[in-house]
C-alpha cells in the first residue's frame, strides 16, 4: 500500500442517529478519514454504514455529533452543502433517473447557465468525454439508463460525482452488482483517482475486495465502531471476527456427492428478451438430484430470461423444459410451484418480497393457496400462516421486530434469509437460486451458502445463478458459463482455471480454449 500523508480530511465525532421510528442506528460513532487514502468500511447488514455515510453526505441529519472537514466544523443541511465541500456519494441503491440518459443524469443540478436557458448539451458532452477519456472509463451517453446494464449504471453514478469534482468519494457497496471484470475495472479507476489525490470511502461486504483495495479498514457493528486496522495488517478471519463478533467459517464444507437422476432438463431452449432480441439461444442442460448446477457469466447474457423461462414467468419461443420427466413448458409459476419448484429471485426488493406487507404475509407468498394454509378452499387461515412465519424466523434465525412488522423494516440480509426460508418451506425438489447473497453480509452469506449445500446434500437439485464468480466456483458441482444466451462451456469448477472462465465469460468456447 502506498504511503499516505496522514492528515485527516474528514473527522466525524460522536455521531448518534435515532430514526423517527426510534431505531438507534448509530450510537456515537467516531470516524477519521485521511486525505488521499482509501478507507474501507465494513459491517454486517444493518450495522449503520449507510446511515453514517448519508449523514456525511448531508442526506440525513445526525441526532447528535459533529463533523469536521479539514479541521473545520461543518453542518450539512442537504447534499448540496456536502457537494460544495467536495464530498460525493455513490449510493447503495442507485439514484438514477431511469428515463434520462447518462448525460442528463450526470449534469442534473449542474447544468450551467440560468435555470431557464437552454441546456448546453454539447458543452457538457465535451466535458464528460474528457473526464471519461482521462479515466478510460466509458459509458454511452445517449441511452436511457433504464436500458443499460447495472454495471454501466454504476459507472454513471461514479461519473456523476466526479463531474462535480469532489475530493472525497463515498462508494456504498459499489461492487455488489458488478461482474469480476467490472470490479477490476472499477478498482483500476479508484486507484487512479487515489493517485490523483482523491480520498475514497469504500463500503463492501466482500472481505477480499476490501483487503485488495483499501489502505485502512474501519469496522462497525450495531451502530458502534469496533475498531480500525491497517489493511496490510489485516486478515479475512480478523475482519470477519470484528464484524460478527465471533469466528466465521469462510470456507464452505462441501462433501463430495454422487449426483442422481436428472430433475430439470432443458432442451434447445429459445427465449426472447424484452426488446425482442433472442436472449437465450438453443440452450440445453440438466440439473440432477443432489447437485448444484451453477451458471456464471457477465450479467445481461440471458440469465434473467433463462430463469424466467424455467420458472414459467416468460414465454418460451422454442425448445422444451422438463421437471422430473414431465414436460413443464408453458406452465404457470403457480403450477410449477405446486410441482416442486422453488425460486429465490435475483432482486429481493422487487421480485422476492412485497415490502409494504408484513413478514407473515411475505412468508406465504407463493404458497398461500396450499391447503395447509386454508381455512377452507380460498380462505386463508392467517393463524396458521403466522405460525409458519414464526417457524421460519426461528429456524433460519431471522432477526425481525415481529411477524406483523412490515418486511421493509428488516435488514437486507434478513430479507434475503426470509426469501430463502420461504422457498425452502415449499419443500421443493428443484430450487432456482439467483444472486442469493447479493448485498448480504458475511454471516448471512455464510448461512445461505451452507444452506444451499445442505439442500444439495439432501438430494435436491439446485440451479445457482450468480454474478459472484467466487460463489459459483465454491458452490457448484458443475457450472455452465453463459455468453449471449449460449453456454461457452459446461465444466466442473475444479477442472478449470479462473483465467479460462474469464475467457469463456468473454465469449470464447471451452473447446477453442482447450485446443
Amino acid at each position, binding site marked *: 500500500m502506498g504511503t499516505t500523508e496522514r492528515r485527516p480530511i474528514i473527522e466525524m465525532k460522536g455521531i448518534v442517529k435515532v430514526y*423517527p421510528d426510534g431505531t438507534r442506528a448509530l450510537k456515537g460513532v467516531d470516524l477519521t478519514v485521511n486525505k488521499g487514502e482509501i478507507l474501507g468500511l465494513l459491517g454486517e447488514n444493518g450495522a449503520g454504514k449507510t446511515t453514517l455515510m448519508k449523514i456525511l453526505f448531508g442526506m440525513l441529519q445526525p441526532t447528535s455529533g459533529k463533523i469536521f472537514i479539514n479541521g473545520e466544523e461543518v453542518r450539512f443541511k442537504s447534499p*448540496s452543502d456536502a457537494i460544495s465541500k467536495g464530498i460525493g456519494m455513490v449510493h447503495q*441503491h442507485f439514484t438514477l433517473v431511469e428515463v434520462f440518459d447518462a448525460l442528463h443524469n450526470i449534469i*442534473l443540478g*449542474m447544468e450551467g*447557465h440560468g435555470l*431557464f*436557458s437552454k*441546456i448546453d448539451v454539447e458543452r457538457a458532452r465535451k466535458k464528460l468525454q474528457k473526464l471519461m477519456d482521462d479515466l478510460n472509463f466509458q459509458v454511452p451517453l445517449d441511452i436511457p439508463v433504464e436500458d443499460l446494464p447495472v454495471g454501466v449504471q454504476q459507472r454513471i453514478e461514479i461519473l*456523476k460525482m466526479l463531474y462535480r469534482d469532489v475530493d472525497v468519494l463515498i462508494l456504498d457497496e459499489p461492487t455488489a452488482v458488478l461482474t469480476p471484470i467490472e470490479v477490476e475495472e472499477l478498482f483500476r479507476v479508484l486507484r487512479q483517482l487515489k493517485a490523483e489525490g482523491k480520498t475514497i470511502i469504500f463500503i463492501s461486504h466482500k472481505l477480499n475486495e476490501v483487503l485488495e483495495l483499501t489502505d485502512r479498514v474501519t469496522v462497525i457493528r450495531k451502530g458502534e465502531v469496533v475498531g480500525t486496522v491497517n489493511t496490510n495488517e489485516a486478515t479475512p478471519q480478523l475482519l470477519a471476527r470484528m464484524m460478527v463478533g465471533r469466528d466465521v467459517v469462510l470456507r464452505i464444507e462441501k462433501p463430495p456427492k454422487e449426483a442422481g437422476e436428472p430433475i430439470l432438463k432443458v432442451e434447445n431452449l429459445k427465449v426472447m428478451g424484452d426488446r425482442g432480441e433472442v436472449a437465450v439461444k438453443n440452450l440445453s442442460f440438466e440439473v440432477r438430484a443432489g447437485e448444484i448446477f451453477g451458471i456464471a457469466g457477465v450479467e445481461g447474457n440471458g440469465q434473467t430470461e433463462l430463469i424466467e423461462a424455467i420458472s414459467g414467468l416468460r414465454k418460451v419461443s422454442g425448445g422444451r423444459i422438463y421437471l422430473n420427466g414431465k414436460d413443464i413448458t408453458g406452465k404457470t409459476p403457480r403450477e410449477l410451484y405446486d410441482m416442486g419448484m422453488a425460486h429465490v429471485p435475483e432482486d429481493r426488493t422487487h421480485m422476492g418480497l412485497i415490502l409494504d406487507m408484513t413478514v407473515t404475509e411475505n412468508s406465504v407468498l407463493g404458497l398461500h393457496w396450499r391447503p395447509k394454509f386454508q381455512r377452507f378452499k380460498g380462505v386463508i387461515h392467517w393463524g396458521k400462516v403466522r405460525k409458519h412465519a414464526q417457524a421460519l424466523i426461528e429456524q433460519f434465525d431471522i432477526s425481525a421486530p415481529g411477524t406483523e412488522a412490515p418486511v421493509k423494516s428488516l435488514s437486507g440480509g434478513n430479507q434475503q434469509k426470509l426469501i430463502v426460508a420461504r422457498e425452502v418451506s415449499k419443500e421443493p425438489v428443484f430450487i432456482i437460486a439467483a444472486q442469493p447473497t447479493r448485498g448480504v453480509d458475511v454471516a448471512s452469506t455464510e448461512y445461505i451458502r451452507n444452506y444451499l449445500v445442505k439442500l444439495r446434500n439432501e438430494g435436491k437439485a439446485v440451479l445457482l445463478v450468480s454474478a459472484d464468480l467466487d460463489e459459483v466456483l465454491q458452490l457448484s458441482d458443475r457450472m455452465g458459463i453463459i455468453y449471449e444466451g449460449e453456454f461457452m462451456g459446461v465444466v466442473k469448477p475444479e477442472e478449470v482455471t479462473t483465467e479460462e472462465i474469464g475467457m469463456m465469460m468473454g465469449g470464447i468456447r471451452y473447446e477453442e480454449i482447450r485446443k
Partner: protein
Amino acid sequence: MNAGDVITILITSLMAMVPIVLTSVGAAWSERAGVVSIGYEGVLLMSAFFGAIFAELSGHATIGLLGGVLTGVLLGMLHGALTVYLKGDHVIPGIGINLLAMGVVPFGILAYWGTAGQHQLPDNAELWHIKTSTVELSPMVFVTILIALVTWWVLFKTPLGLRVRAVGENPEAADALGINVEKYRFWSAVYGHALAGLAGAYMSVDWLGLVHKTMSGGRGFIALANMVFSGWNPLVSLIGGWLFGFFEALATWLAPKHIIPGQFILMLPYIMTLIIVAGIIGKARPPKADGRPYKRE
C-alpha cells in the same frame, strides 16, 4: 358543411380548447414534478369567480385573468403545503377543494353580486377579442398555445425542466444531487394550479362573460384525462385538448341535424377520446414518483 360551418367549428373548438389545455398543461407540469391533484375542477370554478371580481374591480379583463392566476396560486400553495411539506395524500385535498368550490362560489355570487347563481360581466371586464364580421377569437387562444409551447420547451430543454422531471421521476436521485425536492415540487404544484386558475378566469372574463355556479362543467376532470392522454407532455396536451374541443364542437354542430338520438351525439367527444387512446396511444407511463410523498428518513 360549407366554409362558414368549418370556421364556426374551428373557432368554437379553439375557444373550448383553452381551459382544457391550460389546465392539462399545468397538471402535466405538476405531475412531472410528482404532485398529483384532482382539485382542478374546483380551481376552475373558484378562479372563474374570483377572476371576475378582479376584472370588475379593476375594469380590466387582464387583471381578472391575473386574479384567476392568483386564486390558482393560493390553492396550489394550499395543495403544495399539504402534499409536499406535510407529506399528505395527494388525492384527498383535491376532493376537498372541489367540495369547497361548490360551496364558496354559489354563496359568493349571491353575497357579492346579489344575484343568485349567476352574474353577467360588464363589457369593460371582458377581454378584447379579435373580430371579423362573422366570428371572433380570443387572444387567449394564442396565449394558450404559447404557454403550452413554452412550458414544453422549459420542461424538456432547460435545467429547470430537467430538475422538475428528475424530482418527479426519482426524488432520491435529485436530492442526492443537492436539488431541493420540496421546493421544486411545491412550486410545480403552484404553477399547475396557477394555469388552472388562468383557465377558470378565462371562462368567466373572456369566453363566456359570465359567472355561473356550475360553469366548470367537468372540464377539470376532462383536463386530467387529457393530461394522461398526452403522456404528460404539454405539447401533446395542446393537440389533445384541441381534438377534444373539436369533437365537442363537431357534436354540437351535428346535434341540430338529429341523425341519431341527441344523447349519442353528446357522447361523441368521449368515445373519440377513448378510441384514440385505445387505438393509437395505448400505454401511458406516469412519472415514476407521481403522487408519492418524498421523505428522506
